[in-house]
C-alpha cells in the first residue's frame, strides 16, 4: 500500500521508463508488420499479437500524459520543457506503432509481398529500421549528442530513399502506380482530417483522452 512512498525517482523517471517500454512495443509491432508485408508470414496469425501490442502503445501514451501533467502540477515551471518534450515524443512513438499497423493493413489486404528488387530493398529497410526504434530510446536516455547526430543523418538518408522510391514507383509504366497514387492521396487526406480531429477534440476531451474521441463520450470526460 505504501509502495509509492518507498520507491525512488520522480515522475519523469517513470515517464522515461514508460517511454522505453513504448519503443520496445513499437519495434515489436513494426517487426510483426514487416514480417507480414515482406517476410511472407500469414497476417491472420499475427493480427492478435500486433493489435494487442499496438493498443498497449496507445495506453502508454495516455499514461505518459497523465504522469507529465501530475509532474508539472507538483514541480511547477522548472520542468516544463521536459514535460512538453515528453508529450511530443510520446505522440511520435504512438504514431510509429500506428503507421506500422498501417503497413500490416496493406499486407493483410494485398496478401502478397512485392517481388524482386523491391522486396529486397524493403527487407533491407526492415533490418535497418527495426533496431533504430529501440536505439532511439537509448540515445534519449543517454543524452549523447554525437550519437544522436549520426542517427539523425542515417534517418534523413532513409527518408530520402523512401521518397525516391515513391517517386520512382509513381513514374513507373506499370498498371499499379495509378492505384498506388490514389491510395497515397486518400492516405494523406485521412491524415489531414485526423489531425484536424485532434485539434478540435482538445475543446471537448480531457488531456489524457485526446486523440481517442471514439473511446468515450465527451460528456463522460467532463465529469458530468
Amino acid at each position, binding site marked *: 500500500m505504501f509502495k509509492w512512498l518507498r520507491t525512488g*525517482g520522480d515522475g519523469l523517471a517513470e515517464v522515461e521508463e514508460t517511454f522505453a517500454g513504448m519503443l520496445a512495443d513499437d519495434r515489436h509491432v513494426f517487426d510483426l508488420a514487416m514480417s507480414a508485408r515482406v517476410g511472407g508470414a500469414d497476417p491472420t496469425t499475427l493480427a492478435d499479437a500486433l493489435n494487442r501490442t499496438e493498443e498497449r502503445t496507445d495506453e502508454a501514451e495516455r499514461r505518459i500524459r497523465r504522469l507529465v501533467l501530475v509532474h508539472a502540477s507538483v514541480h511547477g515551471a522548472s520542468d516544463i520543457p521536459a514535460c512538453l*518534450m515528453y508529450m511530443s515524443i510520446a505522440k511520435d512513438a504512438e504514431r510509429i506503432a500506428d503507421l506500422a499497423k498501417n503497413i500490416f493493413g496493406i499486407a493483410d489486404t494485398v496478401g502478397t509481398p512485392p517481388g524482386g528488387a523491391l522486396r529486397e530493398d524493403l527487407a533491407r529497410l526492415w533490418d535497418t529500421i527495426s533496431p533504430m526504434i529501440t536505439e532511439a530510446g537509448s540515445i534519449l536516455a543517454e543524452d549523447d549528442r554525437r550519437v544522436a547526430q549520426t542517427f539523425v543523418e542515417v534517418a534523413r538518408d532513409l527518408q530520402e530513399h523512401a521518397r525516391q522510391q515513391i517517386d520512382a514507383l509513381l513514374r513507373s509504366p506499370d498498371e499499379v502506380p495509378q492505384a498506388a497514387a490514389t491510395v497515397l492521396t486518400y492516405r494523406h487526406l485521412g491524415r489531414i482530417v485526423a489531425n484536424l480531429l485532434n485539434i478540435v477534440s482538445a475543446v471537448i476531451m480531457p*488531456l489524457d483522452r485526446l486523440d481517442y474521441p471514439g473511446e468515450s463520450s465527451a460528456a463522460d470526460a467532463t465529469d458530468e
Partner: protein
Amino acid sequence: MSSPAGAAARAPRDLSTDERIIRLLLLLVLLYLFLVAVDLLGAGIAGLGEEFTDRLFRGVGNPLSALCVGVLATVLAQSSSVTTATIVGLVGAGVLGVGDAVPMIMGANIGTTVTNTLASVGSIRRPEEFRRAFAGATMHDFFNLASVAILLPIELATGIMGRLAVVLSDVVGDAAGGEFNSPVRGAVAAGAGLVESAVAAVPGPMRLGALLLLAAGLGLIFATLVAITKNMRVVVAGPAERSLNAVLGRSGVLGILVGTILTVSVQSSSISTSLLIPMIAAGVLRLENAYPVTLGANVGTTITALLAALAIPQIAGLQIALVHLLFNVAGILIFYPVPYLRRLPLRAARAVADHAVTRRTMVFVYIILVFVVAPLSVIVITR
C-alpha cells in the same frame, strides 16, 4: 527524437542525501522559530493589557462574527495555518476563550479555500477546463461551509468538541489545572526570552514593547510558515508526485491519507489542494478522486495548530488545536461514509461551475461575496 533543448531539460531532479539532510535541519530550525514566534505573539498580546485586548476582540463573543473574523483573517493571510497558529497564541495568552475561538477556527477552514478558487480562475478562458477546475475548487468551499453549518450550531448548543478536547488534552497535561508541560517549552521559552530581553532594552512605553513583540510574533509566524512550505515542497515533491499518481484513478481512504500526509508535510492545505486544480482542470483527476484528497488536506492542516500549542504553557492552546482536529475529522465522519451526503458538495460544486461557465463575472462576484463582503458585513454589523 532527443532535441538538444529536450536533453538539457532532463537534468536529474532527485535531492542528494546531503541536500535532504540540510533541508531537514532547516525544517527543525524553522519549526523552532515558528514556536518562538507563537510564544512572542502571546507575550505581546498579554503586554498590551486587558483593556486594550478587550476592545480589540470585542464582538468575537458573537459566534457569527468570530466565524467571519476567521474567514477574513485567513483570506488576508492566504493561509489557514497562520490564522490557526495565531488563534492558538491568543488562546494561550488568555485573550480568547476556547469557546470564542472555536468559530474562528472554523472560519479559517472556510477562508483557506479561497486560494484554490483563485487558482481555478487561471483556466477561465477555456470553458470546459474552467468548468472542471472551478468545480474542483468550490467542492472544498461547499464541504467546509456545510461542515460549519452543521457543526457550529451543534458545538454552540452542546460544546461537545470543546469537552472532548478537554478530555484528550488531559492525557498529556493537567486540564483541571490548566497546565501543559510541553516537551519543547523550555527551549522555546529560552529563545523567546532572548527576543523579549532585546525588546525590553528598547526605550519607550511598555505598550511599545508589547506591540514590537506582537509584530515580531506575527511576522515570524508568517515568515516561518512560508519558509517551511517552500522548503518542504522541494523535499516532498517526489513522494507527493508518486502519491498523487497513486490516487489518480482511485478515491476513498487512500486519497484522505494522501491529502493528510501531503498537507502535514508542506504545512499548507492551500498548497496541497491547489496542486490538484491543474489536474482536475485537465480532466486527468476526476472530481470524485480529488475530493478525498481535499478532505485529507483539511485534517493535515490541523498539524500547525497542534505544533503551535507546543509553545504554549496553558493547556487551552492545546485544547483549541484539538478542537480544530476534531472539527475536521467530524466533518469527514458526517459527510464521507454516507454516499448521498458525500455527493452533496460535489453536486453543489458542479451546479455552481455550470453557472460560472456561462456567467463568468459570477466567479468574481462569488469570490468577493463569499470571502470578503459577507464576512466583513457580518463583522461590521455585529460590532
